């Protein structure tokens, strides 16, 4: 018996899991602080273009610092994070300081991101919509033990970016930070009842800035991972709406870092299906184009089925008038 195809599909699932989990976790910190963030997609886009540039710049000898692998690509990821956080600062400025409707600001963020990415791309790569292909990336690793699984299932763990491992364990520090630290307590209180937070002398605005910018950092990291480690290049449109899929995963997770692991796995698997077309004979009966719709359809179905049964942070999306404005 050979389940190698399934193993390979699961390997891709892990890759998509990483993208969706990082971005979804970003959304979690933002919404737990009370700011709805539908600009995740745009923050990812900023991460893709800056990450891809950073990886090339810090790795290569010619026209760069020549740090080589793995530190060059790592710096790319870091650059993506920083750029994502800064870009998210616009969303924070608009929603926290100027109290623009969160959805309006998020939509604008997404619109603007495409333009900024193009503009940066012309500066970075001399062309507007893509970088050269085959940019530097970290060496893939094979997980000991797991990659030796029988029936070809080990293929899932043979060729993984180190970032996948980071994403898999990220729920631990995230949960700790949210539920066991002073910062987490205060952040969550901003998302549930900012008036209560402010009435106790805790300033809401800085915490919300932190939540939103952390969200941008994680989405930027996710985008950088996609460009540097998965696609090995920057291409316009490569985020494919994954920022919104992450948002759906966040809703499905009921805003819990632990449950988000499972939600991201489900959506990651749905996103992996179209890429394993050749392996599943059943899928070949259906036109390619319909297979490509699967992740979107799954997202809609899950959202329609679950949205009434979860409880978002009570203050998320509501303008908060008080406190140092």
């Amino acid at each position, binding site marked *: 018996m050979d389940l190698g195809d399934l193993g390979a599909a699961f390997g891709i699932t892990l890759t998509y899991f990483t993208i969706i989990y990082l971005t979804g976790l970003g959304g979690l910190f933002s919404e737990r602080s009370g700011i709805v963030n539908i600009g995740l997609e745009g923050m990812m886009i900023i991460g893709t273009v800056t990450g891809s540039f950073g990886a090339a710049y810090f790795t290569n000898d010619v026209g760069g610092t020549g740090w080589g692998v793995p530190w060059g690509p790592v710096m790319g990821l870091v650059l993506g994070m920083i750029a994502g956080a800064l870009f998210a600062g616009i969303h924070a400025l608009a929603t926290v300081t100027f109290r623009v409707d969160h959805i309006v600001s998020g939509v*604008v963020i997404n619109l603007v991101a495409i333009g*900024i990415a193009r503009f940066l791309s012309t500066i970075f790569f001399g062309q507007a919509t893509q970088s050269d292909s085959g940019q530097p990336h970290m060496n893939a690793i094979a997980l000991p033990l797991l990659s030796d699984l029988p029936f070809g299932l080990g293929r899932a763990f043979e060729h993984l970016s180190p970032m996948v491992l980071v994403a898999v364990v990220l729920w631990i520090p995230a949960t700790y930070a949210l539920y066991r630290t002073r910062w987490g307590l205060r952040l969550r209180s901003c998302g549930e009842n900012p008036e209560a937070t402010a009435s106790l002398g805790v300033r809401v605005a800085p915490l919300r800035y932190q939540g939103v910018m952390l969200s941008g950092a994680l989405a930027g990291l996710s985008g950088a991972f996609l460009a540097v480690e998965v696609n090995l290049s920057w291409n316009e449109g490569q985020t494919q709406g994954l920022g919104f899929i992450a948002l759906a995963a966040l809703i499905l997770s009921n805003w819990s870092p632990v449950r988000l692991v499972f939600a991201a796995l489900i959506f990651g698997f749905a996103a992996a299906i179209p890429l394993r077309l050749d392996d599943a004979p059943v899928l070949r009966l259906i036109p390619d184009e319909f297979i490509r719709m699967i992740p979107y359809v799954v997202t809609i179905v899950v959202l329609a089925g679950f949205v009434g049964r979860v409880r978002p942070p009570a203050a998320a999306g509501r303008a908060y008038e008080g406190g140092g404005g």
Partner: protein
Amino acid sequence: MATSGATMPTVDERGRPAWLEGLGGQLLALLAAMGIALLAGSLITIAYGESPLTVFGAIAEFSFGDITGFGYVLANATPLIFSALAVAVCFKGGMFNIGVEGQYIVGMMTAAWGALALDFLPGPLLMFAAIGCGMLGGMAFAAVPGVLKVKTGAHEVVTTIMMNGIAVSLVAWAIAGPLRYADTGGGFNVNLRTDPFADNARIPDLGHLIGVGPSANLTWLFPAAVVTAIVVWFILRRMRLGYEARAVGASAGTAQAAGISIGGVQIKLFVLSGALAGLVGMQQLLGDKNFLPLGYEAVLGFTGIAVAFLGQNNPIGIIFAAILWGALARGETAIQIETELPREFIIILQGILIISVVVTYQMAKRRLFARQLQRAAAVEDLADAEAPGDVAAIARDDR
């Protein structure tokens, strides 16, 4: 009343309508936003070693310098008017239709089907039939997120985005399959597209009547878009659907308590929005190409969101916002020819403009509220609202 001190006339007929009250502030906000964009744009220009005067001068010259240039601007504006109207219609009802993108490309697909399948129709009937098919396609595709929102509560922002992804694949499938160019005999075809439509499917040119060169592609669709904007204004301001939509958008609870079916209004708005979205692609499909290629012009739906914000979701404001946007798009050509700047400079300029507009509108709105409260208190001799924005009162006001 016992507490009344000063006597006030109960009703002052010269009072300005509610919609007009904020207009001054809105205009000011728009000007401020344009000022910010101009300033930021100048800084970028200087950083590139170009004179802002040259750059903005070139944009103005290309857009408004001669009639053909202005023809380009209006042709650019045409689809944007439709897509911004589609966004605005939902927005007035408190909803966000980010799916105009998907709805209009599906609309192009169904319109292409109509133009090909109904080619027996004589004269302009074929054109109208194709346009009708486009609107129906947009309506059907928009109805899905509308119904999902009403029946399940799935937020339209996420569902419409997902529908956009589905639309791209759907149209790709149609062009590669059922609507595929017949002449290639089923073999390879790099240039995937549909058959060309009959000539009577084409929207007649308007530009030649007023001296605009044919390359601008200014068709009768532009005046049609202006008329559509006025019709949408009429629906929103003078018809029951618009009235109910605005009530639902501004206070769903009140609308519901007044017996308005919120779900019904929301679905109607989504369908209306979809019909408008169906018209977005007609300029390139029936005004320009007369066939549907796989490489159709995309993102007009997303741009429509920006234009709707710029026009403050007001149908008449949208006409002007679309023309402004069209001029900036025309500016891409201008700076490519006249300057060393990358054409993406325009995108950045548009981005700054839209962020500034959103923020300055919000500030204008808050000022207006403050002024209205002030005036209200002046009319009352004693305000019985203790203090605006009472911390505690807001706290429990969460339902």
